[in-house]
C-alpha cells in the first residue's frame, strides 16, 4: 500500500531521480574528512536561524516605541522567551564563526581553484550577506548599542561622495533615526537578505553538485586547467562514494555537536542584551558593537582623521574585491597548504590583525572612563601617611576628573599614562607645567585650577613613586652623593 503511494508520487515528482542526482551523488572518498564538515554546519545554523527568527517575529514589534519593550517581554514575561532569544543570538554567533572556519578551510585546501571559481565567488556573496544579517540583527535589538551602531553606520554612509545624503535617506527612511528606520531594517533582516541568502545558497550547493567536492589536496599535485577535469573524473570513478549514506556521517555527527553547543551556550550564557533603551539624550552610555564588528570599531577609533574616508571606502572594496578575484589570480597550481606558505602566512596575519583589533575594541583604552572620577577610589595605600595638603591633592585629582584618563593601580581611564610612579618620571616643576599647560594629548588645566589646587595636586602626585625608585630630580641641581658622582663621571 505504502509502496504504491510512493510509486505514484515518484512517477510524478521524480523523487528517486532527485535523490540520486543530489544527496546520492558520488564524492571522492577522501573528502569524507573532518575538515569538510564546516559548510554543512553553517547551513544548519542558517536553518536554525530561520526557525528561531520566525518564532521571534511572532512576538517582536518592529516599531521604535515598542521594540525594546517587546524584547523585555520576551526576556522576563514570556515562558522561555529568553531562551528563544538566546538561541537566535548564539545561532548567529556560531553561524559567523563556522562560516569563517569554512572559508579558511576552503582557502587553505585550495578548493577555490579551477574549476570551482564560482563556488568561491558565491561563498563571498554569502559572507557579505551573513555579515549584513549580523548588522541588521544587531539593529533589531534596538537598544543603545543598536542606536549608536546605526548612527555610526549612517554617518559612514553619509560620507559616500555625491550621493551620501540620499543613501542615508534610503537607509534610515529619513534624515535621522526615526520611526521608519526600524521598519526598514526589519524588512532587510527578515525578508530581503534571507531571500538573497537562500538564493545564493541554492546556487552554492548546485555548484558543489555540478563541479564536485574538492578532493583532499595532495602536496606536489598541482591543478592544471587542461588535465584537472579528467583527473577528477577518474578519482570519482575509482574512489567515489555516494554522499548519502557514506560520506555524510561526519557531517551529521558534527551537526549534532554544533546543535548541542548552541543549545548549551544559550542555556548557560543567555541572550545578548538588550542594554539600555535607545535614548540619544543619555550621555552616560558606553555603546559597543557586537563581537564581529569590534575590529572595525577599533580600527575606526584608532585611525588618524585624514585616513578615515580612504580607509572607510577603499579598504572594504579592496578586501572584498580581493576575495572575489582570488580564484582568477591563483586559479591553478598547488592546492595543499604545505606547499603554499604565502597563503598560510596571510591567514595567520589576517587573524592576528582581526584578533588584536577585536581585543582593542573590547577594551577600548582610547576612551576616557567617564565615571572613574566618582566611582574609582584612590587606593588606600596611596593615602597612608600623607599630609593634609597631599590628601587634599588626592581629592582635587578626583574632583577634576583626572582619573577618567589616568589610572592609579590599574583603575581609571587608559587614555593618558598611568600616574603610578609619575613622581619618578617628572619633577615638581615638570608636573606643574604639565598640569597647567597640558601637552601631548592632555588639555591645559591652567584655567580650571586655582594655584592652591595645582599646589595640592602636585604635592599629592609627588608622593606617587615606589620606594625603590626615588623622585625625579632636576638635572640642573644635582644632589647626587659623592660616591655616585664618581661612577657617573667615569662612564
Amino acid at each position, binding site marked *: 500500500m505504502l509502496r504504491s503511494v510512493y510509486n505514484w508520487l515518484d512517477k510524478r515528482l521524480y523523487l528517486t531521480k532527485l535523490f540520486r542526482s543530489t544527496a546520492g551523488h558520488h564524492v571522492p572518498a577522501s573528502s569524507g574528512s573532518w575538515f569538510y564538515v564546516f559548510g554543512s554546519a553553517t547551513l544548519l545554523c542558517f536553518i536554525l536561524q530561520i526557525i528561531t527568527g520566525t518564532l521571534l517575529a511572532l512576538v517582536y514589534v518592529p516599531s521604535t516605541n515598542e521594540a525594546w519593550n517587546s524584547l523585555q517581554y520576551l526576556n522576563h514575561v514570556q515562558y522561555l522567551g529568553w531562551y528563544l532569544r*538566546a538561541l537566535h543570538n548564539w545561532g548567529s554567533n556560531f553561524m559567523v564563526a563556522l562560516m569563517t572556519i569554512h572559508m579558511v578551510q576552503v582557502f587553505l585546501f585550495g578548493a577555490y581553484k579551477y574549476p570551482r571559481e564560482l563556488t568561491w565567488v558565491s561563498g563571498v556573496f554569502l559572507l557579505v550577506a551573513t555579515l549584513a544579517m549580523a548588522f541588521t540583527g544587531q539593529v533589531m535589538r534596538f537598544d543603545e548599542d543598536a542606536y549608536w551602531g546605526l548612527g555610526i553606520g549612517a554617518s559612514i554612509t553619509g560620507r559616500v561622495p555625491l550621493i551620501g545624503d540620499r543613501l542615508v535617506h534610503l537607509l534610515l527612511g529619513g534624515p535621522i533615526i526615526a520611526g521608519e528606520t526600524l521598519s526598514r531594517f526589519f524588512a532587510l533582516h527578515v525578508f530581503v537578505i534571507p531571500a538573497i541568502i537562500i538564493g545564493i545558497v541554492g546556487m552554492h550547493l548546485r555548484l558543489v553538485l555540478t563541479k564536485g567536492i574538492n578532493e583532499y589536496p595532495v602536496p606536489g599535485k598541482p591543478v592544471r586547467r587542461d588535465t584537472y577535469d579528467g583527473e577528477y573524473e577518474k578519482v570519482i570513478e575509482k574512489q567515489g562514494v555516494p554522499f548519502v549514506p557514506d560520506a555524510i556521517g561526519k557531517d551529521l555527527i558534527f551537526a549534532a555537536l554544533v546543535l548541542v553547543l548552541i543549545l*548549551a551556550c544559550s542555556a548557560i550564557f*543567555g541572550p545578548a542584551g538588550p542594554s539600555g533603551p535607545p535614548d540619544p539624550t543619555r550621555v*552616560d552610555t558606553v555603546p559597543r558593537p557586537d563581537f564581529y564588528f569590534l575590529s572595525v570599531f577599533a580600527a575606526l577609533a584608532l585611525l588618524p582623521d585624514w585616513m578615515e574616508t580612504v580607509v572607510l571606502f577603499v579598504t572594504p572594496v579592496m578586501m572584498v574585491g580581493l576575495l572575489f578575484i582570488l580564484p582568477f589570480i591563483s586559479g591553478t597550481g598547488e592546492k595543499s597548504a604545505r606547499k603554499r606558505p604565502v597563503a598560510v602566512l596571510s591567514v595567520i596575519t589576517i587573524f592576528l590583525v582581526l584578533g588584536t583589533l577585536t581585543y582593542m575594541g573590547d577594551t577600548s583604552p582610547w576612551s576616557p572612563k567617564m565615571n572613574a572620577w*566618582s566611582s574609582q*577610589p584612590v587606593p588606600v595605600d596611596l593615602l597612608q601617611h600623607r*599630609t*593634609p595638603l597631599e590628601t587634599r591633592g588626592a581629592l582635587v585629582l578626583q574632583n577634576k576628573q583626572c582619573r577618567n584618563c589616568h589610572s592609579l593601580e590599574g583603575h581609571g581611564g587608559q587614555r593618558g599614562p598611568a600616574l603610578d610612579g609619575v613622581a619618578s618620571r617628572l619633577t615638581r616643576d615638570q608636573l606643574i607645567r604639565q598640569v597647567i599647560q597640558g601637552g601631548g594629548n592632555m588639555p591645559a588645566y591652567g584655567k580650571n585650577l586655582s594655584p*592652591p589646587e595645582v599646589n595640592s595636586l602636585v604635592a599629592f602626585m609627588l608622593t606617587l613613586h615606589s620606594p625603590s625608585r626615588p623622585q625625579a630630580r632636576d638635572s640642573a641641581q644635582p644632589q647626587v652623593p659623592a660616591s655616585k658622582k664618581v661612577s657617573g663621571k667615569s662612564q
Partner: protein
Amino acid sequence: MKAAAFPLIALLGLSAGCGKPKGQAERPQAVINFHQLFSENCAACHGTSGKTGAGPKLNDPLYLALASREDMRNVIENGRPGTPMPAFGFARGGTLTEKQIGAIVDGMEKEWAKPVNLQGATLPVYGIAKAPPGNARRGQAQYMRNCMMCHGFGSFKGIAGPITDPNYLALVSNQYLRTTAIVGRIDWGMPDWRHRIPGHVMNDQDISDVVAWLASQRPKGYMMAENQSTDNSFANQSSPDSEREPKR
C-alpha cells in the same frame, strides 16, 4: 557515554536557567539602591565603604550623630563651593534626583549610624552658623594645646603634616575644619574632640576659636562664599581678619 555529557550539560544549564537575564537595564535616574549609588558617586573620594578615602569619613557614627539629615542632603545637593565636593543635585547641574539623594542619606543613616556613647561629654554644634563665634587669638592658644603636637607649627612639621599650609587652607571650608576638629579622622589616626589630650575635652567655644584662627591663616580670596554667608558673625565680633591685619 561521553557524547551524552553534552546534552546533559545543556539540560542542567536550562533547568538552572543560569542564562536567564536577571533584570533589565535601568535608567541611571531610576537607580535608588544605596550601595550602587554610593559606589558610583561617592566612593571615589569618601572611600569604598565610606572610610579610608581622601575625603571626609562618612561611615562614622559620630559624624552621623553630629550632622543632621538635612545638613547632609544640603551638602550632596549643592556641594561645597570652593572645595572638591561638587553639587550632585539635578538643579545644580549634577546627576542625582532628589529621590536618589534621599536614598543616599537614608542608606548612610541605616547602614552606618549607631548610638554614640559620649562618655559624659556633650556633642558640639555642627553648623558654623549656629556655633558660638570664635576668637582667633584664643584659637591660636587652643591650636598650640590641642593640635600642634601632630600638625606642627612654624618649622616643626609634626607627624600628621601641617594644616596651616595656605594651599591647604585655601581648599577647605570652615565647616570642614569644624567638623574635622569635632569628629577627627579615626580611620587615619586623628582622635575626636574628646581624646586629644588625656583628661581634657575641647568645648564648643574651643572648637570655634581654633577654626577662627585657622581661617585667619587662609590666604585672601578663598572660601569667600562661605565667609559671606555664614562667617559674618566673626566680622561683627572679633574678626580674625581685622586681628591679623595689623600684624602684617
